[in-house]
């Protein structure tokens, strides 16, 4: 019996060399009149111990012949009919939920900064005046404090942080140098609630402290960030700007995408859009955490986070970010 099977196989392989077509091969080797079929239908009459062995061999050959013929004929000869399926009907989807846009943007930014050696950091929202102002070169009655009217929990010392810069102080106190962190986080100010202002808003803060850190590093880091975040054609500029917690200070702008620098209503005819503020960490802030400003230097920046989210997702009202109307 096994000899017979071997012979069929040899014949089949011989026929394959000729130009005999698939239909003919099928008739010769797979039809009811084929030798293979004769063996198959005879299996049940074999003694049980032989039955198993022969059955295995013959089925193996049958599968082999079938697959070769299928290949040769270019289509599946035992193709099942799926004509009832309408491929233009929608599929049955497993719906994912949605992330809050802040999460998506923060992750995108975190990934960029992580690739530049930064770690993601966080700190408390309920803070002391010392950490929000004093240690950041904003002594009591500093005029810049009036720009940041704070929400107060216990007058005058305990407040909600009015910027995430307080986390810079926490990080410099608790972590080793050199240090590179980014802080996506919430800040609070006594502000009117309207389309563009919120009393509970988000900032994206960055800080790098070490021995050889300059404005050039801030510019380069921001440039890389901008190109990775907005695209490789993005152009940036830095210009002098005053922030009490840095010296020298700067504003970080991106070339207006609408007018490409010519000046238009979107950029208030400036040609540039202000994205972040930054500068070299003020010597007083370094001193306040026991870092010698003559040896170490550092840069810090803060990105207007909500505004960036709104711009990226074309959201026109900051309130919509935080009242559950989006998702």
């Amino acid at each position, binding site marked *: 019996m096994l000899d017979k099977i071997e012979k069929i196989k040899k014949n089949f392989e011989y026929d394959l060399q000729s130009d005999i077509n698939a239909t003919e091969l099928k008739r010769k080797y797979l039809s009811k009149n084929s030798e293979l079929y004769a063996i198959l239908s005879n299996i049940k009459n074999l003694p049980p111990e032989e039955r198993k062995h022969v059955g295995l061999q013959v089925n193996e050959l049958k599968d082999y012949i079938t697959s070769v013929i299928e290949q040769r004929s270019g289509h599946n000869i035992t193709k099942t009919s799926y004509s009832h399926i309408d491929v233009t009907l929608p599929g049955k989807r497993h719906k*994912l939920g*949605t992330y809050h846009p*802040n999460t998506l943007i923060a992750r995108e930014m975190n990934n960029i900064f992580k690739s530049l050696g930064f770690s993601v950091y966080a700190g408390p929202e309920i803070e002391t005046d010392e950490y929000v102002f004093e240690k950041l070169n904003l002594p009591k009655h500093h005029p810049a404090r009036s720009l940041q009217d704070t929400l107060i929990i216990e*007058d005058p010392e305990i407040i909600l942080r009015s910027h995430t810069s307080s986390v810079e102080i926490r990080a410099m106190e608790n972590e080793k140098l050199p240090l590179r962190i980014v802080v996506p986080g*919430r800040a609070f100010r006594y502000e009117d609630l309207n389309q563009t202002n919120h009393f509970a808003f988000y900032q994206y803060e960055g800080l*790098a402290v070490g021995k050889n850190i300059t404005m050039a590093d801030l510019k*380069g880091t921001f440039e890389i960030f901008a190109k990775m975040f907005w695209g490789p054609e993005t152009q940036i500029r830095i210009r002098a700007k005053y922030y009490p917690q840095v010296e020298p200070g700067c504003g970080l702008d991106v070339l207006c995408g609408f007018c490409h620098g010519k000046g238009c209503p979107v950029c208030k*005819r400036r040609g540039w859009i202000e994205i972040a503020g930054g500068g*070299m960490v003020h010597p007083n802030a370094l001193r306040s955490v026991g870092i010698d400003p003559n040896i170490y230097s550092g840069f810090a920046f803060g990105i207007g986070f909500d505004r960036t989210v709104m711009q990226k997702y074309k959201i026109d009202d900051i309130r919509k970010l935080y009242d559950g109307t989006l998702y």
Partner: protein
Amino acid sequence: MRIPISWLKEYVDLPQDLKTFTDKMSMIGHMLDKIEVTDTDTVIDLELRGNRADCYAILGLAREWYACNGGRFDVPNITADTQAALKSKQYSSIKVEIHSSDVYRFYSTVIRGVKVRPSPAWLQSRLKDYGINPINNIVDITNYVMVETGMPMHAFDLVKIDGNRLIIRNSQKGERFFTFEGTEKELTGTETVFASENSVLGLVGIIGSKDSGISNNTQDILLECAAYDRVAIRKTKIRLNLHTEAALRHSHDLSASLCDYALARATDMIIQLACDGDYSCIEGYHDYYPNPEKPKQILYNPSEVKRLGGIDVDVDIQADILKRLEFKVEKKENSNNLLITVPLFRTDIFESADIVEEILRIYGYENIPSRILEDTIPEPIILKDLEIEDKVRDLLVSMGLNEVITVPMVTLDELEKTFDPLASRAIPLINPPTSYHTHMRTNMYTTLLQVAKRVIDRGDKNVSIFEVGKIYFKQDQNNPIPNFPHKLEFPYVEKRKISLLFASKKNEWDFYRVKGIIEETLDQLGISNVEYNRYENPQYALAAEITQNGLKIGCVGIINNAINRNFDIIPTVYVSILDVEALVKAEKTMKSYLPYSQYPSIELDMSVLVPFEVEAASLKKEIIKSGNNLIRSVEIVDYIEKSGKKSILFRIHYQSKERTLSLDEVNELHILIENILKSRFGVIIQGRDDIQDKIIPITNKKELINRSSKTLSNVHHELIESTNRFIVIGRILEVTKHPNADKLVICKVDVGKAKPENTLYPDYLQIITGAENIRPIESHGKIVPVALPGAIVKSHHTSEKIKIKISKIRGEVSEGMLCSADELELDYPGYDGILILDDALRDRVGEVFERKSI
């Protein structure tokens, strides 16, 4: 700061193209705000720079431009006559008395015989372009010089200073006066005022009174220019809501040294425009200046520009820039350092870093190169709480939840409406931003319920949301909890939480679905051995506390419906909270990929009926304990409530790591476990204990009852019971001959909802059978027991147990088996072939075939 361009051009040259000018000014720190074209001029508005009070002045900005651009910088000269008059002779007609420490300098002159009249047109138009309405020549000159030099000044009508004493003192509580604009202000005793013997003449540094001002009849004036404590001015300005041009300037750090030039300049202009050039009108001066400012000196190392700015700037260029900004620069002998003397008006310069900024901004920030942090890369800091929050976000979103962020402030009333035990420890804000945001939230449910309400109201059927955020509360002083990085004594706590909320108008959610989401989340985080125990809390109608070895991880439950009413939400609300700190602390088992045991597993189901009090977890524990290490896992695959009890279907996977288990052995163990459950928990094993009264036979019903009950004694019978979910009631739709076999037929069999996924045909199974009682036409519509793939039945031929699989029989797919009584181990002697069931069962196609189906 608004700059009428023609005014600025008086002092410096400007480029033809104003954009060159505004771009450069923006780059050096005076950002362009807007450009406006008036009838007479172009007005450029530059943002005010917070630490440069000297630049709230056209001359100040002209100096900045000059520093960048060079060229002409013409500061109007002061006549020698005025200079002499303001330095040599004190006036005597008025006595100035100063009783306030807020006054740093008070410099004044008395001018007699002024002719009050309208200002010349050029002056009027400049003031209008700046944004100040012209009044008369004297007032206009004070305003003009303020805009020009940055120093506010004020002119009093001498006649109005009754008693000839000008007193600067603290106000008295309840004292009133009318501002120059005519509004009445009541004073609190903290302001500093100008006063005569009998009346308040104005608030220093902010505004004059209505009566003390210059009128058309004024002949003699006192003109003053002063410097005050900026904090005092700022407080008064805010308290009395008087945001005048003078107050704006005085609430910043104005140098007292600027008074000299400003007063002289105004005096010159008054002599020219109101006294016909007659300098003898100047009676004299008075100068209160107890602590004259001294110039600051900074020892500066020019390499600081490189160290902080990252750019080399030649020392001579550095010095040149500083000189143009009116700094004095001396080279120190025997060192590279420069000794820099800061001009008095630069109140913003304190140390070397400030000098670096001056040099960099004038040299041009645009010249700073781009460089990427060449310093050593620091060790990464990993905050585990942030990391785990991010993982949970991914898991919840992948399970279809939507992330929201809400405002963490609410009202106390809202917190109390959630029956939060922490509400009594809510942190109030002293100055809440709105009346709806008075307290920090002590839970996230409040805001999530508000979102849910809004979502349901706008017509959505289903809410499934979560928030990763913080809750805030006062420390329990007797039992404070750590709150890094604050010290333990810090009276407030903020804690990271993840809260989930589900509600549906269409009852899409139930406790078990929500619990399942939490289970999957914890499982994916590697947090196993988690216990769920009933938890009583007024916030919930039902809740389970989630713990791991006593560590409280959170809870999951159904919100008390009284809270639904409070928030006006109709559907049942399911919630869960996870404590992020606990998620971090919880013990985690690393997921590892273990090879399957090489020995086969046997899967048997056990359906038990238990009273409600018996918890599934304790049954499961007992099963595993009794399993003698031969149980790989126990799943709960089905659960229903029925007649006051709960029915739980356990699926037990028996498997040994050492050998192949025999069916008999497993059956014995299975029965043993059943007996243990019976005796320990009083459970009823379904399909066994309850079977006898439920048998409904087909034909000769009485006889079959007897026969069937006999089968209960058969041990092998258990197997069918336990895998019976794979044996279902089916209906033969059509029978056709097998193309390749004479004795076989192909049946199309409807098994309703029991049909597995991915079958040959969408609505029915194709099953091949050789049974003689299944024939084309005559068998159409017959009801038969169908073994689905996965079922274990007794082989017709060998009497061994076989597992039904999808297979090809003679080239045709067979997706199951039609069963005979023998294959199902039902004892129907003389009944060969496929078991044909009662037609009445056609309504139950797809249901599990049990003895009672017969």
